[in-house]
């Protein structure tokens, strides 16, 4: 059986997902209670009923999606002290790449936000940097862009926060 996909999240991120999940469930319940039985049990495919069903289906699929995330969530935790010189999820890295100095944090895809220096572990740079140490130069190869990336600093701060 194929292994289920893991979702790497910070504590804060997981908490946010849980809250969203709960509010979606409440919304579905409220919506179901609010709707009149005439529309619910109508045999005619009236537009109001179709819209209602569409909303319920959408909420249902979102709830399943969130359940799957919560079930397969793996919290990002700081590595042991002796392993803090190796890049893992949650690490903030300082790199030199293609003539630029850049600093960002490696996060799971759900929390990625490059405009706020949070880069996905599944991005080409994220994949290339995981497991590497300070001083190493990694060559990131893609079908179009190939860049050498030198790691100059690794730190693990506020790892549970988004």
């Amino acid at each position: 059986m194929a292994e289920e996909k893991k979702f790497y999240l910070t504590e804060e991120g997981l908490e946010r997902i849980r809250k969203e999940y709960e509010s979606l469930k409440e919304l579905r319940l409220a919506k179901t209670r609010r709707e009149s039985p005439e529309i619910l049990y109508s045999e005619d495919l009236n537009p109001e009923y179709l819209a209602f069903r569409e909303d319920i289906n959408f909420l249902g699929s979102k709830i399943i999606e969130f359940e799957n995330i919560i079930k397969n969530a793996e919290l990002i935790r700081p590595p042991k002290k002796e392993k803090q010189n190796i890049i893992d999820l949650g690490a903030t890295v300082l790199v030199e790449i293609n003539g630029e100095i850049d600093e960002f944090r490696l996060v799971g895809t759900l929390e990625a936000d490059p405009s706020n220096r949070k880069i996905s572990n599944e991005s080409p740079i994220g994949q290339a940097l995981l497991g590497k140490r300070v001083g190493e130069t990694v060559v990131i190869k893609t079908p179009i862009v190939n860049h050498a990336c030198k790691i100059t600093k690794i730190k693990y701060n506020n790892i549970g926060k988004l």
Partner: protein
Amino acid sequence: MRGIKKFKIDTKELSQKEKVLFKKLISAAELIAPLYLKQKNNKHPGANFYPYDATKEEIERAARKNPAILSSYTFVERDKAGKLIAIPYHLKFKKELKPISEFLEEAADLSEDKNFSLYLRSRAKSLLDDNYEKSEIIWLKTKPFKFSFIIGPIERYLDRLFFKKCAYQSWVGFLDEKKTKEAEKIKNAILTGRRKILSGSEKAEISKLGIQVDRTAIFSGLIADFMFTGTNLPNDVKLMEKYGSKLTIFESSLESKFKGDHLPIFKAVFDKKFQKSYSEEDLYKGSLRCILLHEISHSLIRYRDAEERLKDLFPVFDELYAYILGIKNCGILFLKGVMNQKELEAILIMHICRNFTWWLDSIKNPDVKHYAIGAVIAQNFFLKEGAMREKGGISWPNFTKLFICINELSRLLEYYLAVGSYEEAKEFIGEYSSFNVFKRFSPQLTKISKLK
């Protein structure tokens, strides 16, 4: 109407009062075009800013005694004795500027946004005394207004002799909040990195960079002639350093350029099989990002001494490097997962199509020649390095090689802008500026109206 380009935009979201205000701004913009037309003359490198018989040396000599000669806001004329004298724009156009200034005052009375009123009143005054700094500072220090409005002598491209004199222009539009937010994200993702700077260069640090995407209703003056799809202001590097800069993307103009130029060029110069891999939507997004990245880059490549050092060659390097650095930065965005490979390819394709567009534009309007020279340098560079295969005028880009070229070209352009001398820059242009690289595509381009 000459010197004016109008775009259809939906104004139904405006209140009645706002509609009146909007009309006042459009009326002011319309009156700017005749002033621009009096400045424009592409038969002379100095346009109508200097006497046609005055040599560069004579003007420079006169400017040493009277700096107003090379002020951005004066015409240079001869007095009865034949001596060069400077006539300020606000005196030369006193009669024409008065009603424009009045429209701005009336619009200010109608506005419920105090900052916008303040800006309009200050700008109304600037037009009458040529002191634009105060109104520019207000514009730079405030958040984007609901109405996007610029008026005055701004761009220096008409002055191919000294790149000093500002030509009149105006635009009026609305802020597109949704697209502005998207553009903001790309800008922030780019600005996380710090570029290493060449030692000995006088790099200007731009304190902040505002961004807005506009639904433009009217272009008047130079901007209507050049049909910009984006801009980054102010041009004064000192103001930029102190108050930051603001970039504007013009959706209406971009849509028009994309449909009229970029897309037809794509269909004309690229292999038919290759074309099938990209939808019109992919390419439009590529074109939008191309100009967005270009304008962001303008704020990253300012050197305090570059204009004085490179003189009339400055705009060639400034514009070309903004395109090249923008694309180079895309590489990092791609590695960070901000965009996928297809999106990156679309940006590169649209850059090539834009190069062709500048060449075609320059055939009819020599004032855009510095853009065309920049475009031809890039195109020759790509071809020489094998980044584009060409057989019978049909090209098939090698994206990996294109990126290597972009990096190499970026390194060279950084050098010229940061520390290069005028002579070195001139030699570089000489090496890569043969327009044959475009002309050989002429048979494929005959369907495009500009070549007819």
